[in-house]
């Protein structure tokens, strides 16, 4: 296998006007946030500069038996350092979770053609379920940096609230819940009844990422109130950049690719909650 090469390929590609190919980066941090959930950070100036909320990076194992890319949403960017959060769910993520600081890992990215649209000043309600948190943390960070919008995070977890500490510095308010006490719709209802859903002079926009049932419920909740809702979708994926057509989802516009037609779709595009 001769995929791995030096970071120089990024500079060569960019100088020639092309998107960087797969290349190795150095891991700068790796920690278990809760059982089976890992935050990894690596140094990559290109991805750090270009990653938008809901974009993802493909990571590759160092085992030649497991060649398929593992796509993970970017959670935070600090200087040249890019963070991701992933659950250990199989052999591939086990392989990646076993890496150490200073190790090399191959990446491709940032991928995803349509990130969350957060250009307009608004009240953004960031709704995440479980491992759907990374794109919302990234959105929170970008919105915080821009400093114009009001940001409320609504995070639902199976049990331990592993991302609260990470997102808290970037948001105006944070509501979180575990499965024992309810779900993100419980929190959205609370937010509405407390008057926290609206902010004077600002439109409310929901951004969501999480398991499919949650996404459908959030879209329906938003539709009932006539609120804009952008949903970052997930699908079993191949290449991640649009060539293999393996990651399709059904939309009102037909079968579209999560990677290069998304990953963000509106509730209207998905035909949810009409």
């Amino acid at each position, binding site marked *: *296998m*001769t*995929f*791995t*090469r*030096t*970071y*120089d*390929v990024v500079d*060569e*590609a960019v*100088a*020639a006007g*092309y*998107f960087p*190919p*797969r290349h*190795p*980066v*150095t891991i700068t941090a790796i920690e278990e946030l809760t059982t089976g959930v890992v935050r990894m950070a690596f140094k990559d100036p290109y991805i750090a500069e270009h990653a938008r909320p809901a974009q993802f990076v493909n990571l*590759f194992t160092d085992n*030649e*038996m*497991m*060649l*398929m*890319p593992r796509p993970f949403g970017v959670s935070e960017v600090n200087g040249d350092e890019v963070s991701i959060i992933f659950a250990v769910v199989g052999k*591939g993520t086990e392989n990646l979770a076993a890496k150490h600081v200073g190790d*090399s890992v191959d990446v*491709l990215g940032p991928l995803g053609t349509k990130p969350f649209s957060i250009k307009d000043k608004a009240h953004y309600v960031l709704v995440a379920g479980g491992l759907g948190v990374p794109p919302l943390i990234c959105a929170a960070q970008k919105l915080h940096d821009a400093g114009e919008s009001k940001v409320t995070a609504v995070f639902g977890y199976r049990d331990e609230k592993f991302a609260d500490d990470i997102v808290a510095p970037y948001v105006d308010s944070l509501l979180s819940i575990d499965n024992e006490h309810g779900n993100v719709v419980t929190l959205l209802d609370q937010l509405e009844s407390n008057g926290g859903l609206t902010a004077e002079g600002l439109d409310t926009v929901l951004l969501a990422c999480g398991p499919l049932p949650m996404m459908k419920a959030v879209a329906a909740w938003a539709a009932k109130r006539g609120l804009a809702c952008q949903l970052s979708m997930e*699908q*079993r*994926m*191949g*290449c991640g*950049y*649009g*060539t*293999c*057509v*393996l*990651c*399709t*989802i*059904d939309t009102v516009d*037909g*079968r579209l690719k999560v990677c*290069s037609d998304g990953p963000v779709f509106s509730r209207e595009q998905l035909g949810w909650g009409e």
Partner: protein
Amino acid sequence: MTANDTNHINLYEDHEWKHPTKVAGVPWKNPVGTASGTFQYAAVRWFYDVSQLGAVCTKGVSPVPWEGNPSPRTTEGPASNLNAVGLQNPGVDHYLVDDLPKLKKIGATVIANVAGHCDEDYCEVVAKLADCDADMLEINVSCPNVTHGGMSVGTDPVALSKLMDKLRPMTDKPMIVKLTPNVTNITEPARAAVEHGADALSMINTLLGMRLNIKTGEPIIANRTGGVSGPAVLPVGIAAVYRVRTALPEVPIIGIGGIDTGEKALEYLYAGANAVEVGAAALFDPVAPLRVARELDDLLDDRPELAAKLAAGQTWR
């Protein structure tokens, strides 16, 4: 950063190809192309200049848009990928006004891959492509992920012969037939294709495969089965090329299956291929086809006898 790479090739600098080949009389700048199912120009063009490749074989096109199979469409096998796209594509009319003119404009050598659910489908597509700017046509009678057409034709030499009898009179364009490995003896459909007008053969399409979720006991892919590709299938592809070359000494052959390095491409050329195509490796790295082409170009420097044969449209064996 890391420096475990001793043969660094800058893929973006101007490169004068040293070792061209010919497939059915069509000149290729080098013996490396893309394999049909893994090439979508709109996606790949951001990563490198695809006109640098020996040829670009585009995704299969059908008479009308096809939506393909439901998701999930993919999973992993050991050193391999399973896919069941089901030939989703926007149709031949879209191809003729979009991908094809864009690829010809940048100077790519283009192979248009033709898909169908029945003989009439194939005929309709070939009729529309008969006078187009594509350099070659590739007839996909080997897709394992459609219920009609595809592999059901390629595994039946009689059905394949009948189809070729219909298609051959429709165009003078060099016609490649893409063969499936899911047969007992691949030389039989190979011979049928050639005797009924194929100018060249490409092999192999994917192997039929399945993975199950051991928590549910159910298949992971919605289509249940998928096509296996990637490094794991390399020996299958090489054996297919070798057997067909032995049985049919004259027919041009494009070798496909598991190629992700110049060395593996070279192996196919020694097995008797005129050229190769890189497929699944592009899922693991977008620039894989160009890198394989550059690696092979250097490897052929040390093999003047093979390089001379390829340049003359001949093969090693």
